[in-house]
């Protein structure tokens, strides 16, 4: 065996174990595919591994097994597989996740804003009602009517928009608490 042959066989031994030394392994595989002696050595190296793993003589492949399979494969149409799509499902998944997160964030902003708006209106209305009671005591019916009108506006608006905050069940309570002295 020449040094070059020995080197090829050692590289093949490494290749079988997926231990690459950085050299051109594509050419090495080409060489194994086309060189009958290297191919036979590849088969024997594989058989050695099989026997060591089975720790017994076991049932080995028939001598012509691979040749027969190869003859059948030769009659088969050549495979031209479509491009690999392996990464695509993960990408789709991550896009869907981002989309869902963005939607949830938007809903949270809208709901939060709605709740804040209501709180502000309610706070203003409460303040207005308290203030209007004081003013009524001071200025009489004119001011009281104005305050009633503002409070009614608030209740109507609240009734129309409260469902957005998911608080429809609170409406009767709000109506009772928010009603004026004459209602």
């Amino acid at each position, binding site marked *: 065996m020449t040094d070059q042959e020995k080197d090829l066989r*050692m590289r093949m031994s490494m290749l079988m174990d997926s231990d690459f030394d950085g050299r051109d392994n594509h050419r090495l595989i080409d060489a194994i595919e086309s060189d009958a002696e290297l191919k036979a050595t590849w088969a024997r190296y594989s058989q*050695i591994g099989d026997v060591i793993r089975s720790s017994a003589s076991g049932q080995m492949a028939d001598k012509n097994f691979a040749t027969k399979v190869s003859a059948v494969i030769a009659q088969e149409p050549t495979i031209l597989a479509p491009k690999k799509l392996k990464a695509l499902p993960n990408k789709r998944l991550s896009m869907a996740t981002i989309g869902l997160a963005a939607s949830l964030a938007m809903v949270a902003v809208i709901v939060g804003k709605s709740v804040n708006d209501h709180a502000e209106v309610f706070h203003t209305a409460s303040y207005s009602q308290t203030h209007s009671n004081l003013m009524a005591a001071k200025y009489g019916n004119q001011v009281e009517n104005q305050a009633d009108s503002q409070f009614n506006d608030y209740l109507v608006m609240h009734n129309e928009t409260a469902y957005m905050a998911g608080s429809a069940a609170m409406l009767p309570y709000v109506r009772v608490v928010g009603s004026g002295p004459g209602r």
Partner: protein
Amino acid sequence: MVEVIDEELVRRVQKGDKKAFDLLVLKYQGRIIQLINRYVRDAHEAQDIAQETFIKAYRAMASFRGDSAFYTWIYRIAINTAKNHLASRSRRPTDDEIEVEVAEQFEGESSLRDQETPEGILLSEELGRTIQLALDELPGELRTAITLREMDGLSYDEIADVMDCPVGTVRSRIFRAREAIDKKIKSLTG
């Protein structure tokens, strides 16, 4: 350990390189036959089913995406083919695990029959015994290196750690072990 070489060979087959499939057959024929032997006791039948397995695998290769290792994938095809074979022989309904699509693609198994000989099977058994004997006769360091690789599936780096030697030495020991055993079996395989 990831079989990078298998991934490369599969890529080649998917690009139309049929010779790369030959290397996969040569690499896995023994393991597939041993696996099928767990289902089918008859050696001739096992060889037939193994051949059927590889042909099915080739025909389905275009759909193989590499989500699992090639060996795991062909292992599954072999099991399903063996179960299918047993089911058809005993005229029982087929197992629901059987890959119908793959099974339907296979039509040419009869052309592979009647080619095995008892002599060939005896030879393969002798080959196994010779390898085992040659392994026992190896110097301790070579036997340990190749056993850690083939039986325990350790990488070269891991073997270097275990044996407390450079990776280059591991490469050399495994190669020398293979060469020593190969020398003994070469005359048998002719």
